[in-house]
């Protein structure tokens, strides 16, 4: 499903967001970026990031200690 995956596990705020932004920059509109994170704050942060930038948050899931996000670039 995802066109690209960013492993941000072990990184703390604001690195998952900064790295996601960088990855999205190199992608085409309509493509999906999957982000893996272990930072509990990233759940609220990716929602806010997508809300503000207009990118679509397709998925925000928790499995154990890992949070998975899918962001569709608009």
């Amino acid at each position, binding site marked *: 499903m995802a066109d690209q995956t960013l492993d941000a596990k072990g990184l*703390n705020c*604001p690195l998952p967001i*900064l790295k996601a932004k960088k990855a999205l920059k190199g992608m085409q509109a309509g493509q999906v970026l999957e982000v893996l994170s272990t*930072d509990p704050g990233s759940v609220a942060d990716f929602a*806010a990031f997508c809300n503000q*930038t207009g990118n679509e948050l397709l998925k925000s899931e928790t499995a154990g200690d890992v949070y998975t996000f899918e962001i569709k670039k608009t």
Partner: protein
Amino acid sequence: MLDSADNTKKMSIIITKGTLDWAYPPFILGTTAAAMDVEVTMFFTFYGLQLLKKDLDLKISTLGNPAMEMPMMGMHMKMPNIVSAIPGVDRMATTMMKNLIKKKGVASIPDLREAAIESDIKMVACQMTLDLFEMDQKDLIDGITLGGAATYMEGALESDINLFI
């Protein structure tokens, strides 16, 4: 993505402090705002100018920081002001902080500053502070502009968020 220049949100931050701990809030907020398509100006004045030096040698001080606690040997160590008077304590606290930063996956200040440059954050160094402390622009990183209070005000007046740190 915002395409109309009129819709672009703007933020300014005045940075007045130059210790390792105080370097975090402005660089974290600045880089994150830029990632959220906000146009950011960072104005470095007084001790904040230390954060623009090519050679970053940032330290923390336990002095005047009674709320500071650091995890050590399975407990949290308080830092009473009197402790700062002991030679080597600030250096030890700085080393402990840097180790924690690495261990917890927190970005380093050089990394965050690099991210700030990459995301086109406008960085302004206070000309008056350079004169006052006899600092040389050659010791500061490239790509910064020099300016004064009027430069800051011009940007601040059209900003949605103005922070003083």
